């Protein structure tokens, strides 16, 4: 695998994905063997919006490889507050560090930032755009639990604004998964995403009800429907209520159905699902560390 920057899951071929996931599996099997791998490495953390979980996961990954992080801190306390451009910020900070992790509220920010720096840059989320490391840990979790062969996946919830979903759906075309999209009509996939999926030759089907497809699924990926997408509270409650699952809902599913969620959840997965063998969302969150370790190790030249 040779990519200077990781901006979008779309840039990753099936081979690239397998390389990262295989490496992550090796790391997960024996993390101690990688503990001094990058003892001289400093990772610059540029988080222009709060995302505690993603930041902790990257920090853990870098430290478990023996390296350390340098953190810009919150935007309020930085020079960005004084009106510095993103292009300037990354050009300054790249001089301090060996690689950068960027989280920014605007779409395309990571791609633009990467055009100004020579050190590798990882996109940790650009607005409603891409979040490739989330996609990689999702794929890792899917591969571990259901495998990529003959895979049928249902993706449910907010498909319009959910970047996690767009990125995952695109990546799943590289493994020829059958994809079912379950959402209220007002939150269906946006045009650009549907276009991309068709271009990639994906077999996609859209549904408004989970019952129609649940028994066929190997994986059910649930995302949160946010109240602010609806004009009023009562409409939100009514619609969102139809896309919540509990242990009883899952009685109609295959025994080995894998239920995933990018977390945090609110009430879209009832707590009684946690006790079932279907629940894999905490494992999914934990997988963020070996996957990010693998990606950092490969980007920083660990494969040489």
């Amino acid at each position, binding site marked *: 695998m040779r990519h200077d920057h990781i901006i979008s899951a779309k840039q990753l071929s099936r081979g690239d994905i397998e390389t990262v996931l295989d490496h992550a599996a090796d790391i997960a099997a024996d993390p101690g063997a990688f503990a001094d791998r990058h003892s001289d490495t400093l990772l610059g953390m540029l988080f222009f919006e709060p995302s505690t979980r993603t930041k902790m996961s990257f920090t853990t990954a870098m430290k478990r490889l023996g390296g350390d992080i340098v953190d810009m801190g919150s935007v309020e306390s930085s020079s960005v507050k004084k009106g510095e*451009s*993103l*292009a300037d910020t990354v050009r300054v900070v790249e001089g301090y560090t060996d690689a950068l992790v960027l989280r*920014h*509220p*605007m*779409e*395309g*920010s990571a*791609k*633009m930032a990467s*055009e100004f720096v020579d050190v590798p840059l990882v996109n940790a989320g*650009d*607005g*409603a*755009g891409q979040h490739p490391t989330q996609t990689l840990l999702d794929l890792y979790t899917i591969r571990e639990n259901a495998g990529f062969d003959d895979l049928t996946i249902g993706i449910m919830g907010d498909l319009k604004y959910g970047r996690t979903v767009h990125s995952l759906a695109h990546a799943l075309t590289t493994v020829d998964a059958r994809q079912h999209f379950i959402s209220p009509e007002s939150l269906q996939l946006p*045009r*650009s995403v549907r*276009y991309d999926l068709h271009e990639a030759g994906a077999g996609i089907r859209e549904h408004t009800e989970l019952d129609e497809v649940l028994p066929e699924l190997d994986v059910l990926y649930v995302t949160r429907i946010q109240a602010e997408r609806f004009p009023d509270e009562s409409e939100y409650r009514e619609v969102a209520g139809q896309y919540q699952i509990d242990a009883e809902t899952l009685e109609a599913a295959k025994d080995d159905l894998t239920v995933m969620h990018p977390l945090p959840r609110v009430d879209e997965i009832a707590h009684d699902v946690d006790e079932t063998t279907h629940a894999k969302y905490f494992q999914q969150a934990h997988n963020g560390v070996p996957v990010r370790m693998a990606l950092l190790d490969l980007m920083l030249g660990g494969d040489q």
Partner: protein
Amino acid sequence: MSDNDQQLRVSKIRNGTVIDHIAGGQALNVLAILGIDGTSGDSVSVAMNMPSDRLGHKDVVKVEGRELSQDEVDVLSLIAPAATINIIRDYDVIEKRRVERPAVVEGVLECPNHNCITTEDEPVASRFAVGDDGVRCEYCDTIIRDNLPAHILAE
């Protein structure tokens, strides 16, 4: 009456570019996309809605003192795909060019996504990949399919 005769209605230019066969009503958008606003002092003449055998109605633009490059011409394909370009020197047509659809247009269109980094005060030009039936922002993936002239960047 042929297209050729119609051209004579607009005064001849000595050196510069004649853009012919612009779809009727698009002449001002052609000027906008080329960043020609008259401030440079060169004379620009515009004829709109002339009868045309090929197009029904066409616009013609003549720019004195400026020879358009192939890259500039290709940008016109977004709004005037049938346009023909004549480069004029000393009243003679020395070169005829056709517009070809470029793979990418840079700094020409403004991304309609207000949350796109290219709309911010950053040192980056907008960049759109040109597809069969629309253009796509290379930064945020937003697709523009209809009414491209409405998205031409103000100079």
